[in-house]
């Protein structure tokens, strides 16, 4: 039967061996982190963005690299998913973007601070996370729209936050499937320029899009029949 001193030897030698292996792996990891995280791309702006991220405890509602709270969206890929103007919108007035939804803290960030946070998110999106977040394996393939009008990039970043198409997207506004049957180009153009001008009590904010993007969007929406 095992004696107490044998048990002690097992404890001490096992712990030492594992601790040594762990320190070794840590050293190797630190050698590789600069390449894997594109550390060269950590500009003063990105560093400032991280500082703002920490000192406002954004992690207390959100997660980043999957770490943090479970109350608000995961933000690692938010730059790719939402684009710059949407992120700036959230950092200016979250209520304007998601009225009546779960609340985000309203901040009084200066323009350089917003730029720093955007730069930080651009960097986090580029870190190689070994495949996280994974593509949803059971997601329905977005059906290609009729008449083959390509989906404008801004639609996938901005409109999809509140609207869904083919079952994918948010539910703040109505689904846009078949919107071309309901609305004509003229109405859509007026609407996208300034929703409150068309319908004063609407919850869709004025997004301030340039005309070129509005044209693209109108063509795309009209084709949804």
């Amino acid at each position: 039967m095992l004696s107490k001193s044998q048990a002690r030897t097992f404890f001490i030698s096992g712990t030492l061996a594992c601790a040594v292996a762990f320190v070794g792996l840590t050293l190797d990891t630190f050698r590789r982190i600069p390449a894997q995280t594109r550390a060269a791309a950590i500009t003063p702006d990105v560093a400032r963005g991280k500082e703002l991220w920490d000192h406002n405890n954004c992690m207390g509602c959100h997660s980043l690299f999957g770490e943090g709270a479970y109350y608000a969206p995961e933000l690692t890929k938010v730059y790719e998913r939402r684009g710059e103007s949407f992120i700036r919108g959230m950092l200016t007035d979250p209520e304007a973007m998601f009225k009546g939804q779960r609340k985000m803290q309203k901040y009084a960030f200066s323009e350089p601070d917003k730029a720093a946070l955007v730069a930080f998110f651009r960097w986090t999106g580029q870190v190689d996370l070994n495949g996280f977040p994974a593509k949803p394996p059971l997601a329905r393939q977005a059906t290609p729209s009729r008449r083959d009008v390509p989906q404008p990039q801004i639609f996938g970043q901005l409109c999809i936050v509140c609207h869904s198409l083919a079952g994918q997207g948010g539910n703040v506004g109505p689904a846009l499937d078949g919107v071309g049957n309901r609305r004509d180009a003229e109405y859509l153009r007026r609407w996208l320029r300034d929703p409150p001008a068309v319908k004063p009590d609407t919850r869709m904010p004025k997004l301030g899009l340039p005309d070129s993007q509005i044209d693209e969007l109108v063509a795309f929406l009209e084709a949804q029949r």
Partner: protein
Amino acid sequence: MRYESQRIAWWFFATCMLLFGLQIVYGFIMAFAHTGHDGLHAFIPFHAARATHTNLLVMWLLCGFMGSAYFIIPEECETELVWPWLAKLQLAALVAVGVTAIIGFHFNWWEGRKFLEIPRPLDYLVVIDVLAFIANIGMTVWRGRRLTTTSMVLFFGLLMAALLYLPGMIPTNNQTIDSYWRWWVVHLWVEGVWELIMGGILAFLLIKLTGVDREVIEKWLYVIVGFTFLSGILGTGHHYYWIGTPRYWLVVGGVFSALEPVAFLGMAIYAISMARRGGRNHPNRVALQWSIGCAVMSFVGAGFLGFAHTLPQVNLYTHGTLITAMHGHMAFWGAYAMLVLAMIAYTLPLLTGRNLYDSTASVFAFWTANIGMIAMTLAFAVAGITQVVLERRLGMDFLQVQTEIQVHFWGLILAASLFTLGILAFIWVFIRSGWPVARVSAKGDASDVSALPLADQAVQGA
């Protein structure tokens, strides 16, 4: 109670009760926010509630460990604490720092790294405070008349916990490196050195409550903490899958963390078999219930529910979802909250001289809190599984999924109310037991099985 200075433990345990109560209040604030009722948003936004909830948890557990050490170390080392005044000062300072931190959270003053939210200047104060504590018990062990394995394991657990707080303070502007060091604190605490503390305290309780020979209990203590470190150190890798660290962590973390439940299973089997083997009946049955309950629930919460999401194939989809919250609650409850409550249940009659251990409230507290916590875990589990399927597998929008799962947070609130009832009963027993007044007696406590001749005194030294 054999030594005057052990009485200090009571003040630490009273602090535990206070902070624990407050922690639960903040839990409810978050649960209501999840159901869409965030009326307090303007004063206590979610991130402030969360930081307060988790930091209060860590603080009351640390207070509980310190109180336990101040009770156990003099008894094991057969000497008075060297500096009882330092223990009091150190408790007061810890509370002052904690209260400052928590008020700060409500005014956007923090460091914003999950579990390490305390702002940097306060970090230094915590370190100084914990060093004072370590010095106090370290000197007591050093001057003591007896060196036992139990006290050594407990002492080294506490010392390592203090040292492992330091990597969390290394400055960096790379989020990956930040996260890397953060886990040295968070993971190596709960799945490493805190288990040493747990092993030490449980061994002490089992020696006192079951009367099994110290030599046998301490031998298995070595085996179990041996398994803890064999799996837990490299098991840190289960947090290095997706944070921008090399791919080999998927293998290292997956294999070693999958072995971690062995240590918890060992702890459960050990506690149950020692209780069986003891044969003698200690009158404080509820303390034994909390001790064995701790070993069993830690296996369920940390071992079983930890394993459920530790393999990289699973974790890719569950990472950062309510599944983690499910595991976090049951693991912290089983392993550490129950441990401190076990210690309080055991020491309270000795510290105050009032035996309320077989009162209805004591028994009610044990069962209601545990059933409530199991139900809370189930509520988090249902919400978490639904979230993983809808958001991570089907690709539905985050906020839309959150609306879908709101109903499970009503379930959580219900379960948490039951749990809270149990904790209130525990606090009630604590209050009714009164101030610490019991007289010390050189022979130890008449009710301790180990105070009977043969069991405890047979073996001296490790």
